[in-house]
Every structure is written in C-alpha cells, then in structure tokens.
C-alpha cells in the first residue's frame, strides 16, 4: 500500500463512508464528555472537544469534525474551524495542563475557514496562539491526522510531541486544488499537484514531520472502521507510554527541537 500515489489517496480519504471522529471517539475512548465554547464568542461545531478515559487514563480529546452526511456537515461547517474553534481548543488544552491530562488531537480538515467573520474574529491570531501555546503546554500532546491535514488550520492542532498519520492521510501546506490553481491557474489539475507536493505519510516521515504511520485496512479505513480504530488505539497507547516516561523539561525540549530541526538550508 505504501506505493499508492498521493492522487489515489485523495480518492480514498474522500470516500463516502470514511470514518470520522464521530465514529472513532466512541470506539477509542470511554465516557467521553463533550465540552462546548471558547468563553469568548461562541461554540464551533468544527472542533469537538472534551474529556474521556483512554484505557482508564483521563485524557483531553480535541478533534476536527468532518460530517458523515449533510446534516452533520452543516453543524460542523465541513470540518473547517472558525477562530472560536481554535480558541476552544486552546481553552481545553490549558484545562488539560491544569489537571495533568495528556491531550489527544485528531486532525481532519481541509483548512481553517476562509470567510469575512473568520477574518473579523482573527483567524490568523487564533491559529498563531494555538501554535505558540501548544509549543510550551506542560503535558504530553499526541496528534493524529485521520484524513486531510490542510495547512495552518491543521497545524493549529499539530504542534505535538508525536505526530502520527493514518496510512492514506495527507498533510500539506495548501490544498492540492489550491496549489494547482496557484501554479497552473487550473484547480482541476489537483491530482497532478498532489503527486508532486510530497504530502503522503511516507513523504512526511522522510521530511521528519510525521513520526508514525498507522496502517489502514487494505482498501482503506472505510472498509473496516473498527479495525482502524483499534490501530489508532494501539498507537495512542504506545505513544502515551513513551511520553509518560519523560520528565517535563525533557518532553518540552524534545517538542521544541522536533520543529526546530525542520528546514533545509546552507549557511
């Protein structure tokens, strides 16, 4: 499966019936209590957050919600968060820090929402704040990209101690569609764009952005949501064990250095 081109993976992650966080959360976590609102403006359905048990350990879950049908998508704005979503995420992350709970971020977004109100309420500032605060958050953070990891809207939940990707997930600086329209003034060439952008899990491991690839069933996660959820659980279990062994300073230094090391230049 590892030689599946990015363009083909784009089809797989867009497959109707690909599991979303609404499928995964009940399978991976116990007693999930959802928390609402950023305490500043409102509640954003594109980001679902709350507390739960993971194998008996209390955790905070912050997840981007792609809808499984039109109804869900209306409620979650097709998984594209507004600033209040990012501010809710930060509030819950700070709460996790206070109560010494690890944070599990589930990423699945085409990107932060681009709109008039999003700009008025400071989309850029909201994302920047998450990135900065997550960088020094005094508790382990594990992030997993389930499908689409679109740009800064994904990175806001992607500053972490370990980043994992489902086998067919992608992570990119701009959507392949946006890339194609930028480069060739032709958005319909997105597949071609996907194949040159280096956005597959394997590409991102080689660029040291992604730390682990979580295998999917042979034809993709949609063929067996339960098996995929089990694979995600297994990964989270291992990742938390690795992070729990570390002292706080070591954890934070490694997190800083993980991002510090990315960049290719000569002096």
């Amino acid at each position, binding site marked *: 499966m590892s030689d599946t081109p990015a363009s083909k993976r784009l089809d797989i992650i867009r497959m109707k019936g690909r599991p979303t966080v609404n499928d995964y959360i009940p399978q991976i976590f116990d007693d999930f209590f959802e928390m609402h609102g950023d305490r500043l403006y409102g509640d954003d359905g594109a980001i679902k957050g709350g507390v739960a048990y993971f194998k008996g350990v209390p955790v905070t879950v912050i997840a981007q919600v792609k809808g499984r049908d039109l109804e869900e998508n209306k409620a979650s704005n097709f998984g594209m968060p507004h600033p209040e979503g990012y501010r809710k995420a930060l509030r819950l992350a700070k709460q996790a820090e206070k109560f010494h709970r690890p944070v599990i971020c589930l990423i699945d977004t085409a*990107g*932060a929402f*681009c*709109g*008039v109100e*999003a*700009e*008025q*309420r*400071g*989309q*850029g*500032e909201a*994302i*920047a*704040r998450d*990135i*900065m*605060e997550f*960088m*020094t958050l005094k508790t382990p953070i594990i992030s997993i990209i389930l499908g689409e990891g*679109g*740009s*800064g*809207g994904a*990175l*806001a939940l*992607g*500053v972490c101690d370990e980043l994992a990707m489902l086998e067919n997930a992608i*992570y*990119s*600086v*701009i*959507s392949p*569609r*946006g*890339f194609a*329209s*930028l*480069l060739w*003034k032709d958005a319909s060439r997105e597949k071609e764009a996907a194949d*040159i*952008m*280096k*956005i597959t899990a394997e*590409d*991102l491991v080689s*660029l040291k*952005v992604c730390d682990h690839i979580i295998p999917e069933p042979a034809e993709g996660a949609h063929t067996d949501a339960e098996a995929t959820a089990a694979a995600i659980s297994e990964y989270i279990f291992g990742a938390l064990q690795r992070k729990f062994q570390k002292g706080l300073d070591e954890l934070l230094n490694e997190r*800083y250095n993980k*991002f*510090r090391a*990315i*960049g*290719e*230049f*000569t*002096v």
Partner: protein
Amino acid sequence: MLDDIFSVVRQRWGSSSPERDDSKKPDIPKDLMFKCPRCGTVSFSEDFNLNGKVCPSCNYHSRLSARERLDITIDKGSLQEFDKEMVSKNPINFPDYEAKQQALRARTGLKDAVITGTAKIRNKEIVIIVMDSHFLMASMGSVVGEKITRAFEYATEHKLPVIAFTASGGARMQEGIVSLMQMAKTSGAVARHSEAGLLYITVMTDPTTGGVTASFASLGDIIIAEPKVLIGFAGRRVIEGTIRQKLPDEFQSAEFMLENGFVDMIVERKKMRRTLAHLLALHEQKGGAFDE
C-alpha cells in the same frame, strides 16, 4: 488556507509587484509615476519617494525594501547582520526552484526574504527582523523560518527585545510542508523569548498575510501597523469566492484590524522610529517604585 494568496496580492497590488516580468513590455510610467493600489491616485515617483513612499492622497504606506526600512529605522551603521549567506535548499525537489531563487538573488541583491541582526534605535540595543516582499513575496521557507528562529534565540540568550517588521504573502509553496513547519518553529522561539519576560514588538507592513499572520506576526506583545496596509489570513479572492460577492476595499486593512482588536496602534512611517524608541525606553524601566 493560503489558496491564491499570491495571485490575490499580485492582482491587487500589481503595479508595485516585484514578481512581474519587466522584460515583457516597456513599463515607462512605472519608473516615473506611482499609481496607488489603494486609491488609484497617480503621483510623480519623485514626489512619492520624497514622501517616504506614502501615497500623498490616501496615506497608503507602500512597500519598502528591507534596506530602505533599516535606513529609516535604526541608528546609522548599527546593524550587525546575522546569517548573511544563508540560502534555501530544495526540500521537496520543486521544479526550477533553485533557478528561480538565483534569478531573484541577482535581481534583488537579497539571499532570501528576511534580514536579521542586532541593531540600535536611539542607542538601545535590539534584535531586528525585517522581511522584504521583493523576494518571492517574502513567503516563509526554510531560510525565513531559520533566521527568525535564530534571531529570537539570540535575543532570549542575550536578554534583548525583538522588533519585527513583517511582510509576507504567506507560505512558500515551493518548500511544501517544510514551509508550514516554519510557523511552528518560529512561534516556538517566540514562546521562549516571551517566557523569559522579554519584549517583542511586531510592526505589520504591506502585506502581512497567510502563515506569517497565523504565526509570529500575531504574537507580539505590542502590534503596530502602518496605515492602509493589507493584513489578513485568507486571500481576498478565496473569501469572495466563498461568499460570492465583492468585499469592501477596507476589508483586511490595518484599520480593519485595529477596529476588530488585532492591532494595538497604527503608526505613520515618519513617526515609527520615534514610537519604537519610546516603547523601548518604557519597557527598559521596571515598574513598581517611584524615585525618591
């Protein structure tokens, strides 16, 4: 998120865009005249330049090169530049990226889109960061990310304030995901500088957009903007495409950001150095006691 930001910037600010291929048509008025992208007023370049590259009609503060910015901001000869020779590699083997960079280096005299170093403003030592939109629209690639990160790390280690003049079209597409990660890297360095209790002032200049807005540019203790400049996250055309209507001119301007609470103050270019000097002086003094 950055869909189309470059083309939007180019389209909107086309007359002053350095990305345009000048060889295609004789651009006679371009040298003699300045057409303001905000209000459309045409003025003689000489008058416009004498006015500090500010539109005499609407006060739009147009783009400066990093060298021009340093000249009007810091004490003469005080710059000790960091990482002068740093250049990007081609992390995702993007077609023609090296050639494009080389051509730009020859044309602009810059190695990449940012100059960093220590400098003085009215004899107060600072670390200064100045982005230059004439190099690939000051998009953030490996060099921009690394130089800014090193500048903050130096400032943290030497207990110095940082002043950053931001300008950027956003991410550098040619570096793919590596570009995106510079947002995290720079913000991490800002966080450590901030935790050390040190001052960071952002000055947003034209245009501050995309991934730079969504990282270190928005994280200053004090955020200043120049009048009428473009500040935003998403590209205007993307938003117009979503809502299917044209946006008003003032959308994503410095004034719009002030009104919505994301900028502390708008400061005219001719008062910038003075303002920065005052703010630096105020922060040098620790509060909590009056003189005897």
